[in-house]
């Protein structure tokens, strides 16, 4: 038997590969669950019911998927143009910081206008944070992997300074958190008495918009060309650096938007545990989705399902909830293997 490279990956296989990868990951993780002393099938059953079983759990899963979609889109849009933005976490926090600072009463605007302004400001903050390393990359050849990654820590320290200092909520009994945003700056709930808010729709709209821009506009076309072959794009007269800069604005903006939405949709104030690593998880989401914008929606819901479901599984069966991290990580590895194998066919000789 030998492997031969395919010219085309058939559509059915392209769809089967991620599903197969997730199944393989669940089978591999079954061993760990059994080791933790829980019945495997029941554990997976609890995982699914924990994520989808009730109105409350379903809305919780979708609420958790919302920031993941946006940070996943942020990573996907950048990676497609070969801009390696590892700084989603920092851009998320800058977006959150800007929204929390501007939403705490300084702006006297009517509700819908205030919300729009806060979202735009949050996105602008995230975009600005990515524009700096991108300019360093295009002008001076500084590796953006290093700069964007390290900026995450700078931003976290800055947020910490702000919520311990100027933005500190005087009514929070000394807890390091910002003053809450005003009542009419809060995104409406989609379903009453749940945590699912209008930010979910914004994330879906962002995915559809990204998909349309990518496949139908000149900007999307040029960024695809730059990502696939920058040399040929430059030779053909496409402004490569300007295209990458535009991609950076989109990417950083999406991550900043995620942070702003998390503040005005869910938490209502800024703390240092606002994100359990949404910026980094966005990279995983993007890779699981093969950098496809609509795939990001599915991948974000999958990752959120595993996290929410694993919490419930842990509570009822005593399995450590760290298993969620393992399932997501193994899924990603299986996905990478599946994508590789899908490009080849096995031939008997």
């Amino acid at each position: 038997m030998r492997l031969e490279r395919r010219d085309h990956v058939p559509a059915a296989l392209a769809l089967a590969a991620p599903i197969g990868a997730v199944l393989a990951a669940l089978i591999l993780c079954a061993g760990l669950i059994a080791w933790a002393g829980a019945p495997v099938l029941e554990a997976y059953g609890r995982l699914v019911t924990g994520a989808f079983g009730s109105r409350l759990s379903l809305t919780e899963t979708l609420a958790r998927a919302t920031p993941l979609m946006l940070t996943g889109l942020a990573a996907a849009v950048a990676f497609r143009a070969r801009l390696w933005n590892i700084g989603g976490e920092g851009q998320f926090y800058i977006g959150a910081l800007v929204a929390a600072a501007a939403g705490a009463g300084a702006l006297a605007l009517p509700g819908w206008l205030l919300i729009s302004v806060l979202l735009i400001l949050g996105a602008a903050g995230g975009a600005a944070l990515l524009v700096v390393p991108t300019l360093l990359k295009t002008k001076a050849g500084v590796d953006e992997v290093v700069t964007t990654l390290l900026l995450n820590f700078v931003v976290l320290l800055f947020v910490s300074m702000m919520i311990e200092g100027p933005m500190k909520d005087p009514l929070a009994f000394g807890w390091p958190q910002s003053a809450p945003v005003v009542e009419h700056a809060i995104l409406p709930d989609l379903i009453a008495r749940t945590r699912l808010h209008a930010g979910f729709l914004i994330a879906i709209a962002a995915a559809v918009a990204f998909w349309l821009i990518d496949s139908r506009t000149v900007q999307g076309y040029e960024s695809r060309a730059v990502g696939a072959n920058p040399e040929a794009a430059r030779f053909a007269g496409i402004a490569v650096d300007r295209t990458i800069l535009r991609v950076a604005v989109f990417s950083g903006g999406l991550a900043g938007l995620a942070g702003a939405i998390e503040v005005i949709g869910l938490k209502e104030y800024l703390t240092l545990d606002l994100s359990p690593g949404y910026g980094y998880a966005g990279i995983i989401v993007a890779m699981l989705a093969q950098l496809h914008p609509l795939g990001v929606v599915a991948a974000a819901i999958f990752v959120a399902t595993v996290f929410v479901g694993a919490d419930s599984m842990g509570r009822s069966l005593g399995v450590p909830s760290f298993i969620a991290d393992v399932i997501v990580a193994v899924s990603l590895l299986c996905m990478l293997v599946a994508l590789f194998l899908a490009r080849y066919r096995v031939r008997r000789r």
Partner: protein
Amino acid sequence: MIEATRDTVLALDGITKRFGDTLANDAISLELARGEILALLGENGAGKTTLMTILFGHYTADAGSIAVFGRPLPPGRPRAAIEAGIGMVHQHFTLADNLTVLDNVMLGTEPLWRPRSDRRAARRRLEDLAARFGLEVHADARVGDLSVGERQRVEILKSLYRDARILILDEPTAVLTPQESERLFATLARMAAEGLSIVFISHKLGEVLAASRRIVVLRAGRAVAERETAATDRHELAELMVGQRLTEPRRQPLDPGAPVFALDGVDLPRAGGSALAGVDLTVREREIVGVVGVAGNGQAGLAALASGLAAPRAGRLALFGEPVRRPSPARFVAAGVGRIPEDRHGSGVVGDMAVWENAILERARDPAFARHGWLRQGAALAFARRLIADFDIRCPGPRARTALLSGGNMQKLILGRILSADPRFILANQPTRGLDVGAIAYVHGQLLAARERGAGVLLISEDLDEVLALADRVAVIHGGRLTAPQPAGELDTRRLGLLMAGHWGEAGHAA
């Protein structure tokens, strides 16, 4: 069945290999005698490389058998092929750049568990072989520091070191300068005289005629003809390869018009080759100016200037009589410059994008293809379909991935892209490198037709015959300096060879 004579060292019998729907090798039989140089001639995709990869055991044939020195060769095992005395020099070298020549040659010849290697004996053996076949290389040089020609010598030595008696060279001259090629042919002749047998894969007629004794022509997976080299000629071989009558396009005498591209005392810092110093060059309407030279003597800089990628550090650059202060590829395209890049995979097309997306690569912002920032996909697809029809691009359709196109069809796509905009100045940088005979004739025809329509063409090429056939005037580039162009009729390959080697005085420097 092949009648195996006493001198037959290698016999292929009925080799057949199928990839999906394509028959890459269709019942090919051939034999190779001791001390013989056999050329395997064919266009790209004729099945030459497939056949040799089967022989070397990387692929397994669907049918057919191989015998080496009268013994059958087990299929699919490169090690068996090496042990039987077959050595292969691939088109892309398989050397470790950070090791020395000696290390590379010894690599894989000694068991891993042996505590220390006998480097002294190995060195002696390597130096003996090098001296015997005229393959001088420095045993302690790092391979990464060697020239391409020297690396090829190391590849050949590697095979000889493993006692190869049959040497297969896959397109060995593709990366060599004319001088290095000549040297290679001399080495091959010496090896044949010593009793080695050589299979030499090529699609270049001139070198096949110069270097081989017998020629087998492959076409579409079949061995269509066999000729003694002495009893055939260029024309017959070309027609056998293509399978139809060929007419080489003719250059009509035309009066050149106004300058379309001019360099005046231009300096350019080093850019992948020599820096340019004081270059003067004028290309006018209705003429083709050829620039020849050994690779790395400043052609890259000249091409960068003529395609808008680089701005002169000193001196002036003018397009259509207007000085250009801040050149850029987009400005050149907008001004009416058509550019054929040297590396069509690397800078000509985006392989992962569709044919239609590459068709509009230079003009995506043109109102014909974009409105309010939205791509007019219908218009782009229609344009791509027209290019496919007008320029005879063989592909499954405008939505096919461009990387799947053959080199010739990719070049036709690039030609179509630039010629459909009716350029007044064309840069053609190595426009036929790696193409087969049919595609070369097509490219030449298109360039001459563009000249007749009034375009000026700057043709940068390493193929002297091509330049002498197409160009009205020819300049030689050496060490970043350019001779004054001379009428092509007053030049011949010998004189050009001297100029290319830098002997400007002896060759009668006109400038």
